[in-house]
């Protein structure tokens, strides 16, 4: 049984309903979930099962319809718009499928964008070095490959030394070799920074690099596996 002070996230009875006129979509139907400090969790599940919805609520980008989510001592489900922004700013690093880099800023500047507003950031160069891109610091996103862009996005996400790192299909737009590099960057960062990391993926093979694997289906967590032994990203077969 994990020590209570070790728990970073707690979710209880989390639900999310989208209403489009008369039509109701139950994206989440009662999620109970916990994550420990430094844990690397992979989230699997079919399309439309509510993975992104869950991650967005946990990341403070979206609001739940019912239930509660706690981040350390903050109840996210009770926070206002401004407080959620502050929460994202101080504690959360995001990585998304489409990188979402600012095209008018170089790699270093994209990282600095975050370090400038963070409370205890690392140096932008160090963050880029963590993902192996120290040599490309002065390149604009348009001058980088997809995988490189994604690694810049990871560097940007971890540069603030976040407590949590949330990744929604970080390898979704990449080929396997590039995907492995990105995953390596993620695991390395997870180890170096000690950030609790949640990674959504469609690639079941990735499960082996996680501490724990959660499977979503139809708005519920239907399966939870703890890996006794973690594999290196380079060892998994795509």
């Amino acid at each position, binding site marked *: 049984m994990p020590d209570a002070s070790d728990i970073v996230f707690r979710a209880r009875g989390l639900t999310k309903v989208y209403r489009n006129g008369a039509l109701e979509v139950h994206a989440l139907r009662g999620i109970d979930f916990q994550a420990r400090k430094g844990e690397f969790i992979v989230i699997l599940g079919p399309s439309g099962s509510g993975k992104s919805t869950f991650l967005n609520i946990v990341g403070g980008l979206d609001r739940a319809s019912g239930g509660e989510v706690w981040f350390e001592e903050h109840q996210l489900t009770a926070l206002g718009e401004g407080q959620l922004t*502050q929460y994202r700013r101080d504690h959360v690093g995001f990585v998304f499928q489409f990188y979402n880099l600012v095209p008018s800023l170089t790699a270093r500047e994209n990282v600095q964008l975050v370090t*400038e507003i963070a409370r205890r950031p690392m140096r932008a160069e160090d963050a880029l070095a963590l993902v192996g891109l120290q040599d490309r610091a002065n390149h604009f996103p348009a001058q980088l490959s997809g995988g490189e862009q994604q690694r810049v996005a990871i560097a940007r996400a971890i540069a603030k030394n976040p407590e949590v790192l949330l990744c929604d299909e970080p390898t979704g737009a990449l080929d396997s070799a590039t995907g492995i590099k990105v995953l390596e960057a993620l695991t390395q960062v997870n180890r170096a920074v000690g950030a609790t990391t949640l990674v959504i993926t469609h690639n079941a093979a990735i499960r082996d690099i996680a501490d724990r694997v959660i499977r979503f289906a139809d708005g519920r967590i239907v399966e939870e596996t703890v890996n006794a032994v973690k594999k290196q990203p380079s060892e998994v077969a795509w």
Partner: protein
Amino acid sequence: MVIPPLRRKVLRDLTRLWAQVLAIALVLAAGVATLILGNGAYSSLYETRARYYEENRFADVFADVTRAPRALLGEVAAIEGVLDAEARIVKLGLLDIPGMVEPGSVLFVSLPETGGFNRLYLRLGRLPDAMSAEEIVVSDGFAKAHGLGPGDRLPVLMNGQRRDLRITGVALSPEFIYALGPGQMMPDPRRFGVVWAPRAALEAAYDLEGAFSNLVLKLAPGANPDRVIEALDRLTERYGGVGAKGRADQISHAFLDAELKQLWAMVRVLPPIFLLVAAMLVNMTLSRLITLEREQIGLLKAIGYTSRAVAQHYVEFVLLIAVVGIGLGFAAGAWLGVGLAQMYARFFSFPYLVFTRDPQLYGLAAVITLAAAVAGALYAVRSVVKLPPAVAMAPPSPAVYRERGAWIRRVLNLRQTGVMVARHLMRWPFRTLSSTLGVAMSVAILVASLWSFGSIDRMIDITFFRSERHDAQIVFGTPEPMPAVFAARTLPGVMVAEPFRQVAATISHRGHEKTLAIMGRPADPRLSRVLDPTLRPMPMPEAGVILSEALAEALQVRPGDLVTVAVQEGRRPIVTLPVSGLSVGYVGLGAAMEIGALNRLMGEGAMVSGVSLQLDPMQTAAFYAAAKTTPKTELISVTSLMLSRFRDTLAENITVMVSVYVILAGIIAVGVVYNFSRIALSEQGRELASLRVLGFTNREVSGVLFGELGTVVFLAQPLGWVIGYGIASAMAAAFSSDLYRVPFVVQRDVYAIASLVVCAAALVSAWAIRGRIDNLDMIEVLKTRE
């Protein structure tokens, strides 16, 4: 009816982008409205005047004499080029209305003969009986100001005699469309009226039996007015003629001309600015729309739409915007036109206004506007139409940014969001520049209209507080010997009396000549002074003449040059005098001499034309009453009344004008800023939403967009000031005439107010866009690729 799909898309785009469409349409509308208003008012004024002159036989040449026998008329009519001539009696009288404390004057004019010139347009009542000694017709403005009508009595002083005249009618005359009384700077219908009376009555009152005091001539078509005036002057010389005037120097006509000139200047300046800005806006907006729809365009072409059809689709979109703008512009132009016509009706006395709703003008405005819009559109459409479908369907290659301007970043100590702003602005230099220019134009329009307040203040300050410091002036009917000054000094309330002598003369220099009144003043005048360009009072020269800058310019002389002065009165001496200095002055042309020197030149002894007075403020009423009944008094002018009238009239007109300009400038500013921000938001919405995800607050994210906007608005200010200064100085030059000069001063507050107004308009646009930034959908941008 089946609407083709592309047409339906046009309509959907219009409704979807309604705010941007409206902003562009309003700028176009402003261009259309000013074009129609300016041209419409111009032709309306021009046509009205032409028709009025034609129908009421406005004369071509005007001449005053002291007293000439009627027999002279035959000789005048025989001058080559003269079609017909009419002898009149024109004399000043004083108002003696009980209860009216301040002095006022009337101009008596003998009724036009049957078939004569300057015929009256009778608005009320009937013409006087030719045999009657007391029946009169009064001018419309004067009648209104006093609430007079047929049957009422008008007490006046004619030639010093009190008379109680009976009004039989109210009329207008083409001679007094702009009814400026003698010694006045602005028409004041309460204190000046025209009274038409039968010739016999005036002959009797002014001892002019068998004689006349004024001539009006109609010229044969093609006659040379200068030649006729020369011949006429030779004939009238013996009878106290002071030089005939053509229409160009006739007060009412000249003021109308000045107004027409101003309208013409407005027509040439304003509409092109609006159309240019609108074309830039169309270009900006359409370029963005086309970029967003690039893939659709590729698809359309792939399935067989021709480039032409695609281009036509976008041009149709723009044409519809233009049509909205033209519609709004027509409505605004027509509405403002009525307003302007009403303003003219107050300012000018016309019996009617020919308000031309010339379909050609509307058609022309529409065509020019459509052309401007389409020009903006074609430039944007050209690039994408040329693309092969396959290339168009692929997403556009990402915008190439360069790490330029690192120094800006160091100098300004920019954060990354600041760098985003700078790079984005530099990435689209054409758009940045044209938006800056657009905002600058709105600043410029404001500078070009607001400066007139300061200019008038200066005109007032110099004219009324530094030069003409007297409280009142009495002008005698004919020059009086010097003791008249002492008589005036003894009138109740008079504290200081200072004589002046006024002599009509033609001053010439190397082929340039001007006829005006030379003012003789004491060597060191206290009340009525002339100022040098540094505003120091100038002593009157012992020998030589001081010319106003305007006159010096017209004659092309500098201090030290010699001018020929041909006096048009008395013995008519002709002398050569040195120009001893130049003076500032904004009303009319001016020449000044020492009164003794002027009297020596005239050789009539020590004479005065009138006195300038400083009054005891407690006794003005007593003074007015006494001065009026002094037999020699022909005219009393009161500075404070003149000044308040001057202020009121100008304040009213300028306030109307400036409000219109502020609205126009606001339209440009809002139009440009709003479109610019909408486009920037559409381009950067994704990045901004990403920033929100990263934990940037709404305020910080808006800051990125507003930083861009702010930079454009900021850069536009100095540019706008410079352009505005240029337009203003061109306007000052265009507005200046022999009647008045407009002092060109642009005070600092003009720039400040212009900038504040434009910044306020920019803030309004920013506020309108703020909601869109606050509601950026963070989750949406995470789901989609750009």
